[in-house]
């Protein structure tokens, strides 16, 4: 196994600050999909989300020295991505027309978990529906829920990224989940 895989994100960014380009490449590898899944929720447009992720990773390249080892790297990079996404949203208020599907209606990535075909199909349908419902709940609920349940970040990290008190974050996530659950209930019925 390559040695750099042993390093934490924080160690990698420190190495990159010292000029190790491989550390940067490793961070890109670790975060590009995570950032895409997060940013996508702002736009619901893959192309635009990818552009924002590119900008975020370029900022990581040019502003690496701005990172101070007092916060988690994930908090820092997600904050940059959030700010880039909000800037882009302000610049271009495009209609959210795309969905998680490619043009031929398939999921972009199914994952490689060992499941039966039936349960995979059921899960796909549920996730597909959930993604549509996610678009229907208020953005401040959606982003908080995505960071918690898709990205699996801690409440503290989400609070730092969104610059909102933990209590408010907890409340938004809870309300977002309840709204989604309510919609899923009608879907199942």
């Amino acid at each position, binding site marked *: 196994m390559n040695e750099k895989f042993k390093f934490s994100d924080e160690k990698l960014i420190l190495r990159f600050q010292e000029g190790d380009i491989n550390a940067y490449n490793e961070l890109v590898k670790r975060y590009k999909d995570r950032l895409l899944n997060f940013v996508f929720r702002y736009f619901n447009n893959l192309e635009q989300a990818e552009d924002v992720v590119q900008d975020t990773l*370029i900022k990581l390249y040019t502003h690496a020295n701005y990172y101070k080892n007092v916060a988690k790297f994930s908090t820092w990079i997600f904050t940059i991505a959030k700010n880039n996404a909000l800037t882009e949203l302000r610049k271009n208020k495009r209609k959210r027309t795309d969905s998680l599907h490619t043009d031929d209606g398939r999921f*972009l990535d199914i994952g490689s978990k060992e499941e039966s075909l039936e349960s995979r199909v059921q899960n796909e349908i549920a996730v597909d529906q*959930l993604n549509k419902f996610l678009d229907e709940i208020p953005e401040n609920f959606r982003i908080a829920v995505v960071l918690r349940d898709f990205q699996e970040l801690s409440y503290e990290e989400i609070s730092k990224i969104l610059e909102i008190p933990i209590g408010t974050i907890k409340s938004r996530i809870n309300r977002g*989940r309840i709204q989604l659950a309510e919609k899923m209930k009608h879907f199942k019925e």
Partner: protein
Amino acid sequence: MDYNKFQDRISDWIENTMDIRDRKEFEKFLAENPEYQSEVDLVRNTIDIMKAAPSLSTTKDFDKKLQDRINLLRNNDKSQTDILGFSKQNFAFLTLSLLCIFMLSVYLLQPSQSNYFVVDEDVDSQELNSDEEDKKLKEVELLNDVNGSFVSDKD
């Protein structure tokens, strides 16, 4: 506990982040109102679906695009640091600053510096003298006006 409070705490209960007292209160409410159990189950199920959701992946040319942009940045950096290790802008600023310092030094250290002020004083005194002469002339003209040409003829 009322229904609103119950709703507010569903996530805390599912994630087990309540203290024991609140947890007991929540569970007591659920036991007394079993019709709300399905609401909790539905939220839990929704969380499970999200956690198991497949994730999006960047497109195939993502890495190449990123690499191209980084290469462009590197090239720009190189072209900007091609004069004695300074960027063009910094080099120009440095040169200008040095030139200014040099000119200021020459100006301050030149030997005729003290004469400059003397000359100034001379000019001032000359100006003063000419002012006084003007004043006298005006007085004479005034006398001329009062006495007519007689005074000036007499002079």
